[in-house]
């Protein structure tokens, strides 16, 4: 159905396991950090992708999450703050055959690297972007981030509460023209793994916001969406073609009231399952995806988990490769001698 450029492992080659993707470096996140689970799930799905290990590149910026490439036994580049999208774009452009993964955080992607983030989304390189959102700067010891809720009190940097309105990463990605937008949770391996694989399978820039807990500086910020006892009532799973039903008893749903999504009870007779929004992740139009994205900005609404949008658009690297191929067909392979002697010349005997 879709055509990835990435080479596949030839038949008969030895099967890889998770262990093949663990590097020889000690992992140095705080004990209990959500990053451990994301690393494990990523290492877990790598052998299932069917591509040679040497064709995989992890690129990161700066921050706790950005140490990730050191722990993957693939090619990796731990770059500078906010700039991973630019370096990943160069890597992919120079060799479209590579499977390129950008590991970033809320500060890295949305603050210092905000400009690169939006432009990466609109160019639609076939790159996977995993944003570990913990709503805090961890590596610099706890300052509010561009996804921190307004009023967040960090005892050193914002003792009286932050003043900024937070970014909604999903809305920002959609507004930037992202062709694959999803959300998942660090410790929910059963959800995160399929999301990672879907991101890989998507041809174009795939963006996953991963709710990740920093229990040192911002513990429990996503408690309602992460912990078993709360999440059934506070998250709604997005499944293509399915109505938006949630709740421990599957008795609640999301319907559109005018332009406003609202939670309704499907058991009291006023509304039925037929009144609910039916998810369409393949819709070219982003209206529905934007409604769903906005839910996490609305108090008391469940946060959608899963794929908000997945559409097929041309990739930058393919368009560029086409330009090169067309130019070669039209003008022939570059002839350097002819190029240097181009235009009006004269010869001195």
């Amino acid at each position, binding site marked *: 159905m879709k055509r990835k450029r990435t080479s596949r492992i030839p038949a008969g080659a030895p099967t890889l396991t998770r262990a093949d993707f663990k590097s020889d470096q000690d992992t140095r996140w705080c004990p209990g950090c959500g990053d451990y689970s994301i690393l494990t799930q990523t290492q877990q799905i790598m052998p299932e992708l069917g591509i040679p290990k040497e*064709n995989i590149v992890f690129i990161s910026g700066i921050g706790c999450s950005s140490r990730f*490439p050191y722990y993957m036994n693939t090619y*990796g580049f731990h770059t500078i703050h906010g*700039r991973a999208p630019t370096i990943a774009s*160069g*890597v992919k*452009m*120079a*060799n479209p055959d590579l499977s390129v993964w950008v590991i970033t955080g809320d500060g890295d992607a949305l603050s210092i690297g905000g400009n690169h983030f939006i432009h990466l989304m609109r160019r639609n390189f076939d790159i996977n972007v995993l944003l570990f959102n913990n709503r805090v700067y961890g590596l610099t010891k706890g300052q509010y981030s561009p996804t921190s809720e307004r009023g967040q009190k960090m005892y050193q940097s914002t003792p009286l509460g932050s003043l900024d309105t937070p970014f909604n990463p999903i809305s920002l990605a959609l507004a930037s023209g992202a062709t694959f937008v999803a959300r998942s949770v660090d410790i929910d391996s059963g959800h995160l793994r399929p999301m990672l694989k879907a991101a890989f399978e998507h041809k174009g820039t795939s963006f996953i916001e991963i709710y990740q807990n920093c229990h040192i500086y911002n513990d429990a910020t996503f408690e309602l969406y992460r912990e078993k006892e709360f999440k059934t009532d506070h998250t709604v799973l997005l499944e293509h073609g399915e109505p938006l039903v949630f709740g421990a008893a599957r008795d609640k749903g999301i319907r559109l009231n005018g332009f406003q999504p609202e939670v309704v009870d499907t058991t009291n007779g006023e509304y039925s399952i037929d009144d609910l929004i039916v998810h369409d992740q393949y819709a070219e139009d982003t209206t529905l995806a934007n409604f769903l994205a906005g839910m996490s900005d609305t108090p008391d609404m469940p946060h959608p988990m899963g794929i908000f949008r997945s559409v097929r658009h041309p990739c930058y690297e393919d368009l560029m490769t086409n330009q090169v191929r067309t130019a070669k067909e039209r003008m022939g392979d570059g002839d350097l001698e002819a190029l240097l*002697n181009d235009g009006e010349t004269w010869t001195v005997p």
Partner: protein
Amino acid sequence: MRKPVEQIEEATILFAGDSGDGSQTIGTQMTETTALIGNDVATLPDYPAEIRAPAGSLAGVSGFQLHFSSEQIHTPGDLCDVLVAMNPAALKVQLNKLKPNGILIVNVDNFARRNLRLAGYESNPLEDDTLTKYQVFKVELTQLTRKALETTNLTTGEIDRCKNFFALGMILWFYNRPMEYTMKWIKAKFAKKPEYIESNILALRAGNTYCEATEQFAVSYDVKPAVFEPGTYRNIEGNMATVLGLVAASHQSGLPLVYGSYPITPASDILHGLAQYRNFGVVTMQMEDEIAAVGVAIGAAFSGALGVTGSSGPGLALKSEAINLAMIAELPIVICNIQRAGPSTGMPTKTEQSDLLQMFYGRNGESPVPIIASSRPYDCFEAVYEACRIAVKYRTPVIFLSDLYIGMGAEPWKIPQLSELPEIRPDFAASADSNNGFEPYLRDPETLARPWAKPGTPGLEHRIGGLEKSDVTGHVSYDAENHEKMVEIRAEKVARIADDIPPTEVFGAQEGEILLLGWGGTYGAIRTVVENCVAEGLPIGHVHLRHLNPFPKDLDDILQRFKKVLIPELNSGQLLQLIRSTYLINAVGLNKVQGQPFHVFELHAKIDEILKEIGHL
């Protein structure tokens, strides 16, 4: 009967008018024709930052200076023999560049009261005594062009836009140059608008015929072809030479070229130039900002391509953190800095060489980066090619310095043979050559370069980054001794490039009174002055540095052979500081920070002053 023709050795012409008047176009055409008939030429475009400043205003004056000769020349000339002023503002701004008794051609039709007022003239300079020391030719350029084009179907506005070709037709007559090259260019340029082909050629011819017919012009001039080394030549601008040098380096090394860029004057022409060569596999990426532009170059280098980015001073400031990443990750990229007058936004369309210390020191930590500077328009080809060679061989970012003056200036270029181009060998790592598996910082013992292992190569999976690395393994390391060692290794690697550059050429006296030490776009003015001094028998020499970091190994010895070292620079003394601190000598500077190149007379005056000081005169 044909009017008499007088032989002269050289001439300098300055075309000046409103930015929309087409002075750059006719200047370029005159340059092309003059080069093609065999003169040596050098040019200096001088234009405002505004695309279309208000018509007739001083701010909107655009100029194009052209120097041509039957001898080898190196500069666009100090003062002009001919000034073509299309309006009072052009006259006001450029008159001080005309030699006494020089020829001034003015478009009298533009000297109405409104334009005089815009230029700040209280009375008409054509009628008062402003111009008494010049030979003034008042030409009704607008009226004559309208008359010549009255049979066409163009509007008056369209007709008036052809008057620059009327002026060019006059100048071609004046210097006995053929019109055919310009006609050929007009035909190609307006291939899709045939009505403009006819009108511009009519205007060109009319200007030419007017000079032959009018009694104003009694003689015309001829400049015999210059003597050039045998070879095939073309006329080339510095930025175009940079483009060709990059394409050549990509082609000869087999490395695909990825050029990341963000538009900025005067570097944008490199993006424009490279974008034409997709059939060479050249990828140009116009990015969201300067940082992204260098980011894609670094990413491309990590993937095994020739990553290049280009900008000017303000852009370089933004790129500095990323350049440092390439430095510590030891990845080959080339950063082109086409310098302009700073600081900050400064004067974007004026030249300067004031980014040298920024390039040396403008990064955090100990960050040695090789720096290579081109000296003249055609030298951009070789210099940027050399930057690519050093980058690839030593796995390091290399800064290539050019400037607006040479980037936009043009001169004849002897086209090199491909066999003359130095070899560039990527030598990618193919397999782990250690029992410990692949070690990305296990160095070549001679060059200290680390292996370049591109993703896609089985068995060489490795991680690099901006954190300090452990020697050999490349693992993250906070070890005190290791950090100091790595700082030393990175410095030593760059220092060893000095073993890989040819002996320094000393022009003129090999020892003696004064050594003029220059770099970058001051080459032409310095070489002209030193040639003059040598012709007078003065013991004066000239060294022009291409390699600024590291300095050539023999430079110390050369500096010691002269009583005085004079360093002329278009900054407040940046190379001067480096030379004084590196070699502990009492070098002196000649500094000019006006956004304009040196005049030859300015250098002569300084040399005379030094000669007097040291008792030679």
